[in-house]
């Protein structure tokens, strides 16, 4: 039996997190989550720039990193607007600490080998594609417009990563082993993408967000056939799913990522670039 990414997971959250008060502004919180996912994943992908396996793929990965960073900038700008406290996208990206970041853990893991990067993209792209599709109908004009634009980008991202999953899985013995190792390592990080908490529910009630849990089934309908076609094994339930990012409980990797990302901006507070 395979683990259902949407199913309730053995949470690693501390009891304190469960007791914490609901977010003051759920819509701000929700849009920051969307923005942080793409900011952090775009950052990881951009680490490939100049180091890809072949020139054409270097250029392809940079395109996707640009799309994700662009989505992040637009989402964080929107979040700043919703918050109304004068923070713009750069204030949110560069002047929050790691416990204030709301990205899913899967996005912050180090880039690994090309197989790890591709499988992570594939898992995220399939989720993001479904999410944008649903949010394109959100009762929030700006978010809906952003979703419609991002949906086009992610449709291509999914085509790109899906094609690579097939090539790596059904390529050589080495590429198959590497792709399978990536699938196995990343599988337990996928459940977090489909969690719904008070923030999601509050925003969904207003007809803005969607129930992420409802996307899980459709995600599996995209992901599993491609894995099988790629001659890869869909993992069985691996025990405790990794989660916590939406509440600011991250892996050890995010702090290092942010230290690097924020160093210049924070060394010159108030400076314009």
């Amino acid at each position, binding site marked *: 039996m395979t683990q259902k990414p949407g199913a309730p997971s053995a949470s690693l959250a501390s009891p304190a997190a469960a007791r914490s008060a609901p977010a003051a502004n759920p819509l701000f919180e929700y849009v920051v989550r969307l923005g942080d996912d793409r900011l952090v994943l775009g950052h990881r992908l951009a680490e490939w720039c100049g180091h890809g396996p*072949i020139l*054409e793929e270097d250029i392809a990965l940079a395109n996707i990193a640009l799309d994700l960073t662009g989505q992040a900038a637009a989402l964080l700008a929107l979040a700043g607007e919703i918050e109304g406290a004068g923070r713009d996208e750069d204030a949110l990206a560069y002047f929050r600490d790691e416990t204030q970041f709301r990205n899913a853990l899967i996005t912050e893991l180090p880039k690994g080998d090309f197989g790890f990067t591709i499988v992570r993209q594939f898992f995220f792209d399939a989720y993001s594609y479904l999410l944008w599709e649903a949010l394109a109908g959100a009762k929030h004009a700006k978010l809906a417009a952003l979703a419609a634009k991002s949906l086009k980008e992610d449709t291509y991202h999914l085509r790109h990563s899906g094609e690579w999953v097939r090539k790596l899985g059904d390529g050589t013995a080495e590429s198959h082993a590497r792709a399978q190792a990536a699938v196995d390592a990343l599988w337990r990080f996928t459940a977090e993408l489909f969690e719904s908490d008070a923030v999601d529910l509050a925003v969904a009630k207003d007809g803005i967000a969607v129930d992420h849990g409802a996307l899980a089934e459709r995600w599996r309908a995209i992901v599993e056939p491609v894995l099988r076609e790629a001659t890869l094994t869909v993992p069985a339930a691996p025990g405790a799913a990794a989660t916590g990012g939406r509440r600011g409980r991250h892996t050890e990797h995010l702090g290092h990522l942010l230290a690097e990302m924020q160093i210049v901006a924070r060394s010159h507070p108030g400076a314009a670039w």
Partner: protein
Amino acid sequence: MSDSQWPLWEVFTQGDHGEPFEHAGSVHAADAEQAMQNARDVYARRGEAINLWVVPSTAIVASAPSDAGPFFDPGNDKAYRHPQFYKVPKGVKVF
């Protein structure tokens, strides 16, 4: 297995609806789907194209330099193929 940079493909882009496809350059790719994706990422990243063709470079047949005279010079002295060759009575609009 020996390493390679993958086979070469020629990329043709159509800039706008109704325009002809023009040669934009080449990409390396292992198969047609990848050639299409790489062509998109390399030659359409500034919105230069609305359609793409990719063709294995080995499938392109080019005229040889030695053909230049026999192939193209005879086309240069057939004035009767051009509309300007024909006189039209003054004041008549043919088109």
